[in-house]
């Protein structure tokens, strides 16, 4: 098992390096000159050259990339701005603040948004999925599959804004979405993120209901479920212990993908609700040609996806002994 994890993490690091390299070299393919933004209103060529040097952009691309990667593993000394310790992602071109601090500062919001939504859509999605599978063909199953179909077709920026209009702007039922750190005031934390959670959940629940339902239906026809019943097990424990166990694999697979993308910064959700998460940070980094910030946000986004892939594989082994021992 340990060997399996180390092999996968090595693979992950390689993938991240490839993605980082792509971002880095593509960044310089964009026609804009980041130095121009660090130079004053009137920017004669010699001053522009000086600004480019201060940002370290005058070295060959390959050298810059190596120094950047070096910074992550060994830390890096910025002349003038001081030393930045091991996981050094550099200083933002815009406000010269260490990029890592800004990322860590924005991460709690994105994590709260993701986990909050995950709890909601997992609970509703899987629950309705199971019920729909058990009551296959009955009224409940029809409602579940129709609502899941509609849910899957909705767009965050549409129902998000509709919800904002009816729940916040017109009737003030909910608070304007905003982030209050959990440690500071859990109640406001929940109230502030309630709307985004619900909206995100509506869209994701659909997928989980459909997947749980179809896998559960398959599981219930498995022979060992029939054996369990033949052993006199009560229906509830047959479903929970045997059928659900098989369905877990499908749920874990799509959950890994969803969490990976959400942690990477739900750009559209944050844009719709005006939340300053990793998504907004990455967008602003793009518009202000802030290379270190962009590299950091891409690393976070890609890192999240890759890490969750590994977690999913590990969970496979935990759930299914056949995988574990092969």
């Amino acid at each position, binding site marked *: 098992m340990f060997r399996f994890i180390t092999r996968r993490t090595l693979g992950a690091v390689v993938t991240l390096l490839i993605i980082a390299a792509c971002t880095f070299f593509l960044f310089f393919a964009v026609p804009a000159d980041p130095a121009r933004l660090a130079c004053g209103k009137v920017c004669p060529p010699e001053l522009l050259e000086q600004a480019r040097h201060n940002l370290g952009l005058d070295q060959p691309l390959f050298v810059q990339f190596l120094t950047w990667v070096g910074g992550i593993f060994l830390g890096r000394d910025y002349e003038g701005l001081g030393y930045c310790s091991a996981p050094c992602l550099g200083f933002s071109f815009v406000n010269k603040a260490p990029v890592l601090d800004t990322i860590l500062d924005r991460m709690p919001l994105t994590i709260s948004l993701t986990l909050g939504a995950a709890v909601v859509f997992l609970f509703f999605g899987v629950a309705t999925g199971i019920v729909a599978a058990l009551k296959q063909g009955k009224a409940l199953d029809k409602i579940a599959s129709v609502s899941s179909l509609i849910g899957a077709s909705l767009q965050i920026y549409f129902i998000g804004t509709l919800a904002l209009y009816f729940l916040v702007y017109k009737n003030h039922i909910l608070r304007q979405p905003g982030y209050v750190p959990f440690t500071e005031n859990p109640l406001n934390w929940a109230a502030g993120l309630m709307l985004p959670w619900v909206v995100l959940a509506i869209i994701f629940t659909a997928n989980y209901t459909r997947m749980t339902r179809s896998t559960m239906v398959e599981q219930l026809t498995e022979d*060992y479920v029939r054996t*369990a019943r033949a*052993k*006199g*097990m009560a229906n509830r424990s047959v479903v929970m212990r045997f059928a659900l166990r098989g369905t877990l694999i499908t749920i874990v697979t799509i959950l890994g993908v969803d969490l990976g993308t959400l942690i990477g910064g739900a750009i559209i959700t944050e844009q719709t609700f005006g939340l300053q998460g990793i998504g907004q940070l990455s967008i602003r980094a793009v518009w202000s040609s802030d290379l270190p910030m962009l590299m950091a946000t891409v690393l976070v986004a890609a890192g999240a996806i890759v890490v969750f892939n590994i977690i999913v594989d590990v969970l496979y082994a935990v759930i*299914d*002994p*056949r995988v574990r021992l092969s």
Partner: protein
Amino acid sequence: MSNPFLSVRDLTVDFHTEDGLVHAVDGLSFDVEKGTTLGIVGESGSGKSVTNLTVLGLHNPETTKISGEIHLDGQELIGASRSTMEKLRGNKIAMIFQDPLTALSPYHTIGRQIGEVYRKHTGASKSEARARAVEMLTRVGIPQPKTRVDDYPHQFSGGMRQRAMIAMALVCDPDLLIADEPTTALDVTVQAQILDLLKELQDQTGTSIIMITHDLGVVANTAHNVLVMYAGRAVERGTVKEVLNTPRHPYTWGLLGSMPRLSSSVDIPLKPVRGTPPSLLNVPSGCPFHPRCDYMDLAGPELCKGERPELSPHRGHGDACYLTLAQKREIHK
């Protein structure tokens, strides 16, 4: 004769499907004496498995219509409540299935799956259940049971898995064991070991067994009595000797004819039953076998196509065919 241990009277089972009503079992009656093994033989789709699943009450009530009576040791099963059935299953009646790989849960250890039943029915603690599981594994002849009890099904060979299956079924010393084609998925050598094991366990515990199979060889050396089923009905019933040696129904002849015998010489071609099993959606009128029966004209086609032949006589060696006893004896010397 006290009333039989298990008696099935006029059992009819129909399924609602998209294409209409499927008559899986149509007025079936049979008995099983205590401590004896009844072999149920018939092509796939003849209703063998459906019958036994009905005994256990494992059908989905919404889509199945069941009528008739089943008495086990005097207790009525069809009308029984869900909870009583749950108490019975695994405790008084147990079942083993054809493909042990898919019939055992891949996610739980063998010990746990066996122990589960024991704990459910006897309220034993985890450790007691585990000890019982180890004991059962020893009884069914699994080497190093103490270590193998924590293994997973995929770590067992085909034969060993079937043994584990049997261990699980017999853990609560059930009175009736239903074996649904237990050896079909195994190769011949392992098949013999499993059958001997079953016989040996029957001698020890006096459990009666219903052996469902399409292989007459299996019936020959395990069953005391035989029931031949066709299209959801019994067409012949009797002791092993009677049915195998002096079969009286054309379908049974066909079955015997299509089976290679050690005794018969190699160059006599086997005589398979022509045609295919009838669709249970619209069962042929009269005797369901008449479209494939070579002797219809002998018995009189209007008879065979007309009324449905009853299984007569009610006791002993009965068959459901309009041919006279003499004709039957004459045809099959």
